[in-house]
């Protein structure tokens, strides 16, 4: 009797939990679906729903300002990812392997861009750039993005370095491989998952960034998020909704493919192991 009552209570709890979670997911997804819906709105500005159209998807490619800012964002994100992952990978290995004076200080410094509000980092960089007379533009945005991407890359990759005392690397060097060969053939493959997630993280952080880009941009070009922010006074136009819809679909498909390939590779590795 009491057991069945207990089970009943548990089932009710489970049901409540499910309802609650579905509600939270709904709230998290509402903005995405509203954003998508209004990309089909037949109105120059999204003030109210005015019927269905796909014209914004066609017109998107004629709107040079929006597409131009997207390319600007993508170029910066790719460069920021390459620089951050390169410095982050060798940095993570160096900080894990070697002891040197000031190492603790550098480790602490790495947490500053992650934790301190971004606006503070942005204005601090801005006044330094102005002080040394660097003209604002792509270069300064890039430095800004790398400054928060590098710490994330280092932390992500450091977590993937096993603490097994570098026996594999030593074996490789004993067998006559030089440092660079050892790094490329032994060290890098072992931390590859960490490097990949660092790259993914850097790219998404950079392409979505508003605060640094807004502070450190010159007068000429702006990234897509900065353009959206500046549109907010008059209202964001539906073609931006269309572009963002395409981007989110692209990312989701890429993620599914990535998952699929990873699973396939895992299966193959397992099969090879069995042989």
């Amino acid at each position, binding site marked *: 009797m009491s057991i069945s009552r207990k089970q009943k209570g548990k089932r009710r709890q489970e049901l409540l939990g499910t309802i609650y979670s579905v509600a939270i997911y709904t709230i998290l997804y509402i903005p995405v679906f509203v954003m998508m819906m209004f990309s089909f709105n037949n109105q120059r500005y999204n003030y109210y729903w005015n019927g269905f159209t796909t014209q914004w998807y066609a017109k998107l490619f004629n709107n040079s300002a929006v597409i131009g800012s997207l390319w600007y964002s993508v170029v910066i994100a790719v460069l920021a990812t390459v620089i951050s992952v390169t410095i982050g990978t060798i940095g993570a290995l160096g900080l894990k392997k070697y002891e040197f004076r000031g190492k603790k200080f550098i480790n602490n410094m790495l947490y500053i861009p992650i934790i301190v509000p971004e606006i503070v980092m942005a204005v601090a960089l801005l006044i330094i750039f102005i002080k040394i007379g660097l003209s604002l533009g792509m270069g300064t945005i890039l430095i800004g993005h790398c400054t928060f991407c590098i710490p994330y890359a280092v932390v992500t990759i450091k977590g993937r370095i096993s603490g097994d005392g570098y026996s594999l690397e030593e074996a490789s060097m004993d067998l006559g491989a030089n440092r660079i060969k050892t790094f490329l053939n032994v060290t890098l493959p072992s931390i590859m998952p960490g490097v990949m997630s660092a790259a993914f993280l850097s790219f998404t952080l950079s392409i979505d960034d508003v605060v640094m880009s807004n502070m450190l941009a010159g007068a000429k070009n702006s990234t897509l998020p900065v353009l959206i922010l500046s549109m907010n006074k008059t209202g964001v136009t539906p073609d931006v909704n269309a572009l963002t819809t395409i981007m*989110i679909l692209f990312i989701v498909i890429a993620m599914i493919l990535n998952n699929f390939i990873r699973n396939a590779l895992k299966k193959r590795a397992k099969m090879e192991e069995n042989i």
Partner: protein
Amino acid sequence: MQKNTFKRKTLPSLAMAGPVSLWMILFVTLPMLYIIYISFMSRGVFGDVVYKFSLESYETLLDSTYFKVILKSIKAAFVTTVLCILIGYPFAYYIAKKPKEVASKLIMLIMIPFWTNSLMRLNSWLLLFQTSGPVNNFLLSTGFIDTPMSFVYTDGLVMVGMITNMLPFAVLPMYSSIEKLSRSLLEASADLGASGRTTFFNITLPLTFPGIFSSIILVFIPSLGIYTVTDMLGGGKVLYIGNIIKNQFGSIRNWPLGAALSVLLIVITGLLIYIYTRFAKIEDMEVL
């Protein structure tokens, strides 16, 4: 021999740890020190910086207009944090109790909306709640209200934006600390006759506290510096510290004041991190 150590140890450590160290010193340490320095200078007539020691900016912060904004920001960040923790904990708990494969899919499902540009997601709330938007239309047609309500550019809508933007940062650390909780402890507690509630308050909650505190830091600190939510949903009518800092380096041109506000944020951040490191390691903060 000495040359050998140089080649074997110093050179590789320099080559590997050097670039990251240099970057951090040039673009983190120096700017941070410089902004602290600027905060003690004063503003010239033309918005330039007068390089003479002064506490002018810090005195201005205590001025009622700025002090009100500071208090308002702290209050908003506090409310956001509390609500994110209260809403997020049961959610994190529900996910953590699922089998591992299901849980990782559910976590993925939280992340997907966040790959949509955050400004566009904020803009959606504006579209939903604007004067002739779907929410007002619905309320009008059902007869709940006679005239459209004005949700936009209010503190309430800003709060909706803050919470929906910050929620994942609260859920993820709490999820991983609940997930690590050993099942045997909970079973032991139940076997010894403790009710579900007793077990929760005496075991689950204390043991997952580091996760909760990570969430507090990851929500409170960014909320304190945020200006995009207020810009998008507050329409310039709702101002937080972040907006004030941004304006000092933009249109208003009072660098020392903006620097002093930044230093205030740095101090609050440092204080919270200091408290955190008293009982947990910073490496375990689950910042990712």
